[in-house]
């Protein structure tokens, strides 16, 4: 019998507004948190019942998280503002053995590396299974994110870091190691005292890249770039791959520190780590730009000719960057849903251009200002214009703003100086153009024009 009483409080809407650590942890493992509706179905039903009856109720409580079943006694006391929860005799029963390694079937484990790490993500075990590449020497005690180059998922997140914060299982973390792409999955480990002791999992090989450099030449060439000349298109792809991994690792590690997943640290250190992650993302953006640059400067580069609607694309861009604008109190006046402007161009490339224009407008607009996006048609040209209330660009600067690496003397970490150059190249590759109209103190108007399309 555990004598400790775990307390919590829900408001009238059924949202958990305060909770002792075990209850909060359970709520978080169920995918919610403070200020969110109770995510434990049985408890939520009991709270609702108590509130409806306006009467105290005491019942057994059954809940489960991803590694244990929990049995307890709960007492709920409703009042005018919500209800108080008191849980006693909290008993957790493991549903999976928390200590021992899973004894896997050799046939089903496949090719990959079995691994285990401690709560600080330091590797304590690494072994190859099947026909996986040999594990690297000196892995002992190294950070998981150092050995495996963590790749963000489609949402830009790292499943393993999220799992670390939640102390829960994860899968689908794409990583690169030993010239191979692997998919990392793992189970959270807990000891008999309920303490998180790390992760144990498997890195399944999903793709083995051919060795970048023949072994005989390896001693004489940089392992990332070999002896490729700068003009070789492969060089760009290699530099992209060579930079993307370490940068992803820097961002992942900095975010781990900034998010204080491993425990509390001084606030200024956490901020520094946040700055490092920010700078890393900036560099990653530069790598993206460079990859784009090389792609569009390739002889014969041609964009696809999709049937697009500039009004729709403008609204999508606003949807993607609206939060960023809100942070600065900037209002965006976007085309209404009735504003259609059929055109021809490659959907994702046009969106990329619009995101660049809108991103610049937000970045260089003063707080609490306004940005307008308008669509229009002039003969056979369909146009979308992004106008801001920033400091504007004089005529001399307008001539240079579309040049490579031109940042008009700015030295902040805002951009690479490639965005507008790439945007104009893309516009022209789609038989369109990108122009600017501005004057100092009067903001800037960037207009993307594309071949108009007559709808049937």
């Amino acid at each position, binding site marked *: 019998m*555990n004598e*400790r009483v*775990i307390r919590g409080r829900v408001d009238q809407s059924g949202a958990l507004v305060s909770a002792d*650590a*075990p209850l909060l*942890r*359970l709520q978080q493992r169920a995918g919610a948190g403070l200020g969110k509706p109770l995510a434990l179905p049985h408890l939520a039903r009991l709270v609702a019942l108590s509130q409806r009856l306006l009467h105290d109720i005491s019942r057994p409580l059954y809940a489960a998280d991803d*590694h*244990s079943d*929990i049995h307890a006694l709960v007492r709920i006391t409703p009042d005018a503002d919500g209800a108080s929860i008191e849980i006693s005799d*909290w*008993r*957790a*029963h*493991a549903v999976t*053995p*928390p*200590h*021992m*390694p*899973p*004894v*896997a*079937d*050799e046939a089903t*484990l496949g090719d990959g*590396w*079995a691994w*285990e790490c*401690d*709560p*600080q993500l*330091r590797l*304590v*075990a690494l*072994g*190859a*299974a099947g026909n996986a590449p040999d594990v690297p020497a000196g892995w*002992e*005690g190294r950070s998981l994110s150092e050995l495996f180059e963590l790749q963000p998922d489609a949402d830009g997140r790292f499943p393993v870091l999220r799992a670390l914060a939640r102390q829960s299982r994860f899968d689908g973390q794409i990583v690169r190691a030993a010239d191979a792409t692997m998919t990392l999955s793992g189970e959270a480990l*807990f*000891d*008999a*005292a*309920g*303490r*998180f*002791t790390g992760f144990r999992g498997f890195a399944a090989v999903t793709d083995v890249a051919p060795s970048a450099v023949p072994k005989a030449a390896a001693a004489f060439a940089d392992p990332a770039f070999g002896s490729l000349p700068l003009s070789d298109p492969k060089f760009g792809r290699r530099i992209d791959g060579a930079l993307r991994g370490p940068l992803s690792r820097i961002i992942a590690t900095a975010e781990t*520190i900034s998010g204080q997943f*491993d*425990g*509390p*640290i001084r606030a200024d250190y956490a901020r520094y780590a946040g700055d490092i992650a920010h700078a890393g993302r900036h560099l990653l953006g530069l790598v993206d730009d460079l990859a784009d640059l090389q792609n569009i400067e390739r002889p014969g580069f041609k964009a696809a000719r999709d049937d697009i609607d500039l009004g729709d694309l403008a609204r999508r861009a606003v949807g993607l960057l609206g939060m960023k604008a809100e942070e600065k109190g900037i209002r965006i006046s976007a085309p209404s849903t009735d504003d259609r402007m059929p055109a021809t161009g490659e959907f994702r490339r046009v969106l990329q251009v619009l995101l660049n224009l809108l991103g610049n407008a937000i970045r260089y607009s003063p707080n609490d200002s306004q940005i307008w996006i308008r669509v229009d048609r002039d003969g056979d040209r369909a146009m979308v214009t992004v106008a801001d209330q920033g400091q504007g660009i004089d005529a001399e600067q307008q001539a240079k703003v579309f040049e490579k690496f031109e940042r008009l003397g700015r030295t902040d970490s805002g951009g690479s100086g490639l965005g507008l150059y790439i945007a104009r190249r893309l516009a022209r590759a789609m038989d369109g153009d990108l122009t600017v109209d501005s004057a100092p103190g009067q903001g800037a108007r960037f207009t993307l024009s594309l071949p108009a399309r007559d709808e049937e």
Partner: protein
Amino acid sequence: MSESLSFPGIEPPSPALSARLGELADYFAAPAAGRLTEEQRALSLGIARRLVADVAARIDPGVDSAGLWADWLRSGVPSAARLASICFARAEEHRWRTLSAERTVPAPLTHELDEEDPGVEAVGPMTAREQAYLTLRIADRRRFDAYGQPKLAIADLDSEIFRAVLHDVAAWQLAAVSIDTGRAMDLGGAVRTAVEQQSDAPGMTAAAIAYHDAVGDALPDAARAAIAAHDWPALIALAAGAQRRVYADMALAFVTAETAALPSLLAPLQIDRDALAPLEASLAMLPSRAVSDGHGSAAEAGR
């Protein structure tokens, strides 16, 4: 066992007959003693097989270790007596830990998140104790293969046993490959290199002593915490380190100890009797323990 195990007139006795007679003679010698269960037999045999494969790979990564083992299963495993004790010790430790983990009811998640918890302390350089614990955990995980099966780490082997197994494997390899002077010299060189490199990673005993020394005055607290967490490798390591004993020997002492003998076994850890309760309960639930009560823990096995 010292007497002839064959019947007069049957010469030579078949290996199967000899084995049966040996088993029967052992039974006659101690009829009340518990016998190996199939699980214990299979675990020990698997550990021996993985050890032989690991040793063979040290000599020649291309060696046909499956063929080697199949041959030895037919003709008998060389150095059987030496291997039996270390494989059995590892198997029993594994069996205990597995069963303990399966039956563990984690303490309530009440364990206050804001309580001191070495696992989630602020980021900073590792203390000597944390480093020693990490090294211990790495050494422990070396005793599992990639599939989670128990094995013996080469670094944990007694050097004489390692050398004997190396020679046995080399002899098999030489016979399998054919008589070739150059090949024999290569194998000899490989064996010498393997012997020299046996301790290229710290084994459990060294890690245990280092952990014990790093814990220092906090030994009783560390031992109590290990028992509460059912962190049996850490507890065995502390006990082995305190008595400067080989980790595997201490592990075997744990799993073969009578309940009444545990306090004296753990006396150097300076923990009170009450703190031993989870350990006693965990060992008591392990069936077929080879406890030194002469009855093979028969009473406990039935639980």
